[in-house]
């Protein structure tokens, strides 16, 4: 947890002398992988980040998108993996806290949270169950207390996360464009630290997160206090309304070291601060501890002398501690003092910009071998296979999770959790659709197409609510980047995301890279996570009850792409084969057509076809509406596949549309006109889902029975396993 030899030499050369002890601690925190992105930064530049709606301001930690009528939406995504793997309750809770403060820093109110959670195999691994249970409670206790609805997310279990946890949190903010904080300061302005006291928790957290998890260093995990966070949100927004904030930054990884150096560097000024003025939780903290503590619920605010009393009054109203810890200077130097003596003095630009690395990469040898592995043969009883997938933890209803999250507070949640994407109403009469998606099983076999697939899946989900994707955030989670094979998977994923962004003209407005995600059994599977924001100008497609006689249309081609499918991995315990690929032309064509049909109001329900394939997507539609469906598999547009492959292939660019009879002709003809691969594959009726292939019945399940187990199996597993 200290500077590398070459980094120390670089620093010495840059500042023209040997750095002292405090300086080394400050720079080590800021130059950690977690804060500096030193392995990834040169590559991240390939992501397109411009667009008509994108607003760029210096020093923002969140992406800002203009949604019209003088309003903006902000978005950010982060993870708290290492801390959550050690202490799931506190780790997950503080993960929520951190991302919310990034939204707040732009001057917007956080209005929604989404969580992506990944753990080991909870059917067998009691430790994974413990991690899962406590991470969910941590998120619930934190988000609920703040009154920010947790409206969506995903939960996945995979052996590759044994003894580990991925806890990703995305947050969305909303506000008026004119109230965005511009982050400008000049010499003489006052630097204020607002919020919780600085303690010894979370010291070295950024470095801890930048190493493989070999020691369970609990002191590096921060302690959550949602009540203080709530007060900070209200105090900050009140100060924003009164125009008291010239610049603001949240204290996250790297603590004060990171916040001070990055703020000074972004604004092109210097900051001088006195560690003795920082309100601490315990006595006798060393300056280096104060500078690198990652105690939560703290904000760095820059105001001027004239407005300081007003800011202090607001802090007093909310009983939020607020210390004047320093001032802005004109010399671009980050200076740390201890009342009289100077402890550290370095150019902010040097501290904030670690020397970047161009790490070597190499295609992993496992890839070809896995792709060419002999694929398993079909089981005889496909009804049983479908049921066992429906009850598997990855596919079963996640109601046990989202039922613990307050997803209604804020009274914006139009489409609630449990559907494809969540939809929130905005004050200008428009709607925002949000979704996050990841798929490590696909990414492990094909990092590039896998990442593109996650991107498309998130888009498909927002499109199914009638929204047009307007921006994305990515969270790239991989193992140790010093391993060229792992680094290759990182680069491939990044290339895939970039291609997708460009083809669809969706700007990347923010993101995060989390490396060194290693478990005792090796690296995690590549886990890029994509969050997509979609905008609905008029009416969202809310979940409606499917009625008897409604037709089922499948858009897209079902291909021989079962590698990384739930069917192979859960049923056959088989890792290998060809993972689904994305054909960008076909992908965009299908998406545009489906969106325009949904927007024309001709569709009763739309659902994307993803995990578990067609069989699961159709079952989900039926279970939600408690209605059966007769499906003719021979009508599925496909490439000469056997029944099991048609049912369980996870090919992308596929959508299910439910259309009432009277509108069927019009929908079919518009699909034909647009030259979209599609077929009417079934109709809804009765209380059984029947799959038949050329008149032979292939599988049959009762909707009520399937629903009962699908709905309850995760809860049963968590509580009674």
């Amino acid at each position: 947890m200290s500077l590398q030899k070459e980094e120390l030499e670089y620093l010495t050369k840059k500042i023209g002398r040997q750095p002292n002890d405090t300086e080394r601690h400050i720079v080590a925190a800021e130059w950690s992988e977690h804060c500096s992105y030193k392995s990834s930064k040169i590559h991240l530049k390939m992501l397109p980040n411009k667009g008509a709606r994108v607003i760029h301001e210096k020093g923002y930690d969140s992406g800002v998108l203009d949604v019209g009528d003088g309003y903006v939406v902000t978005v950010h995504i982060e993870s708290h993996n290492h801390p959550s793997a050690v202490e799931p309750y506190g780790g997950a809770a503080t993960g929520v806290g951190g991302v919310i403060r990034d939204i707040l820093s732009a001057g917007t109110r956080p209005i929604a949270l989404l969580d992506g959670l990944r753990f080991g195999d909870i059917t067998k691994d009691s430790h994974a169950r413990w991690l899962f249970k406590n991470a969910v409670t941590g998120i619930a206790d934190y988000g609920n207390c703040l009154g920010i609805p947790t409206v969506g997310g995903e939960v996945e279990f995979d052996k590759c996360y044994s003894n580990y946890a991925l806890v990703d949190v995305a947050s969305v903010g909303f506000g008026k464009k004119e109230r965005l904080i511009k982050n400008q300061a000049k010499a003489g302005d006052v630097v204020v630290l607002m919020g919780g006291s600085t303690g010894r928790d979370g010291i070295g957290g950024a470095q801890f997160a930048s190493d493989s998890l070999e020691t369970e260093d609990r002191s590096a995990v921060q302690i959550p206090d949602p009540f203080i966070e709530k007060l900070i949100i209200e105090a900050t927004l009140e100060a924003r309304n009164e125009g008291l904030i010239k610049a603001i930054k949240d204290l996250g990884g790297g603590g004060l070291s990171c916040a001070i150096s990055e703020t000074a560097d972004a604004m092109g000024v210097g900051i001088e601060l006195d560690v003795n003025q920082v309100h601490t939780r315990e006595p006798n903290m060393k300056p280096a501890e104060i500078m690198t503590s990652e105690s939560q619920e703290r904000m760095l605010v820059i105001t001027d002398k004239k407005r300081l009393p007003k800011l202090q009054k607001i802090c007093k109203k909310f009983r939020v501690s607020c210390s004047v810890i320093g001032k802005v200077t004109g010399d671009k130097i980050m200076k740390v003092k201890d009342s009289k003596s100077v402890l550290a003095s370095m150019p902010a630009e040097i501290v904030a910009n670690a020397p970047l690395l161009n790490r070597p990469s190499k295609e992993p040898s496992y890839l070809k071998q896995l792709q060419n592995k002999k694929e398993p043969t079909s089981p005889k009883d496909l009804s049983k296979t479908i049921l066992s997938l429906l009850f598997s933890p990855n596919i079963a209803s996640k109601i046990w999770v989202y039922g613990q999250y307050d997803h209604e507070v804020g009274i914006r949640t139009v489409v609630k959790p449990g559907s494809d994407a969540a939809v929130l109403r905005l004050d200008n009469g428009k709607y925002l659709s949000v979704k996050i998606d990841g798929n490590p099983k696909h990414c492990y076999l094909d990092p590039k197409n896998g990442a593109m697939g996650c991107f498309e899946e998130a888009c498909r989900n927002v499109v199914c609510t009638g929204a047009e994707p307007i921006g994305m955030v990515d969270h790239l989670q991989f193992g140790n980047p010093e391993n060229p094979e792992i680094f290759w998977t990182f680069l491939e994923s990044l290339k895939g995301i970039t291609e997708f962004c460009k083809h669809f003209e969706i700007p990347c407005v923010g993101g995060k890279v989390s490396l060194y995600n290693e478990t005792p059994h090796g690296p995690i599977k590549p886990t890029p996570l994509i969050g997509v924001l979609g905008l609905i100008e008029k009416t969202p497609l809310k979940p409606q009850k499917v009625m008897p006689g409604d037709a089922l249309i499948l858009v897209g081609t079902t291909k021989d792409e079962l590698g990384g499918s739930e069917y192979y991995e859960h049923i056959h315990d088989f890792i290998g084969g060809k993972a689904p690929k994305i054909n960008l032309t076909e992908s965009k064509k299908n998406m545009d057509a489906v969106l325009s049909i949904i927007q024309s109001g001709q569709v009763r329900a739309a659902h994307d076809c993803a995990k578990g394939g067609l069989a699961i997507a159709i079952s989900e539609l039926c279970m939600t509406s408690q209605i059966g469906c007769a499906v003719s598999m021979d009508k599925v547009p496909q490439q000469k596949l056997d029944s099991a492959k048609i049912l369980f292939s996870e090919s992308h660019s596929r959508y299910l549309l439910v259309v009432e009879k009277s509108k069927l002709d019009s929908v079919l003809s518009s699909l034909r006109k647009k030259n979209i691969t599609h077929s009417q594959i079934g109709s809804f009726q009765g209380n059984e889902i029947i799959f038949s292939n050329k008149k032979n019945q292939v599988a049959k399940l009762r909707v009520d029975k399937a629903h009962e187990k699908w709905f309850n199996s995760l809860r049963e597993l968590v509580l009674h396993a």
Partner: protein
Amino acid sequence: MFFNRCYWLWFNNRATYNGIVKVGVIVFPGSNCDRDMFHVLQDVFKLDVKYYWHEDKLPKNLDAVVLPGGFSYGDRLRAGVIAAHSPVISDVKKMAEKGMPVLGVCNGFQILVESELLPGVLLKNTSLNFMCQWTELIVKNNKTPFTSKFKLGQKIPIPIANGEGRYYIDKENLEKLKKNNQIVFQYGSNINDSVFDIAGICNKEGNVVGMMPHPERAVEPEINPKDCAPSNMIFQSLIATVGARK
């Protein structure tokens, strides 16, 4: 906010009472449904609404007070217990004694119980988890300012969102509640092991009502997946009651 979407509601409600009902929404540190309640009262029902911070004095001319949901003081010690000792509560008590309608929702209910304006306690849910779901209420008392427009036994689809929402009262006092007609809402099914499925109660006089479910989350058709007319009647009852008094 949401003006156009609320127009029809506004029009319907306005017809009930043409004067302007003055309502205070009390905000404690940690309240988080205060803005939702404010929006509903002001934008949906067109009332004259003001926020009052927990240290404020309440003006004498208020027609009603609402204690919104949230986590006052982060639910420390016990939900609602610290807020119950806020300066504003002594004003609420004085005004309640004079018969002013007071509604406590969720954490507001917990605060009313902790400040002894209402009997009983709210315990941690038996699941030990926070519960956020839609449920159904049955109106058991239509003599309060918040239920006067309901028929007895009428059903209300409404969401709950709480971690400490299990109402408890001992047998002897439960009998008193029943005798005095203080049970206002019951859950349609046993969702959290509350005594006698109690979801909301009132004081003996009937003017102070506390309920765990969130009516402010159920009055707008856009976010209510079921039927928002019944929840609307909670607020329409208040408007009618205040109107009748003026």
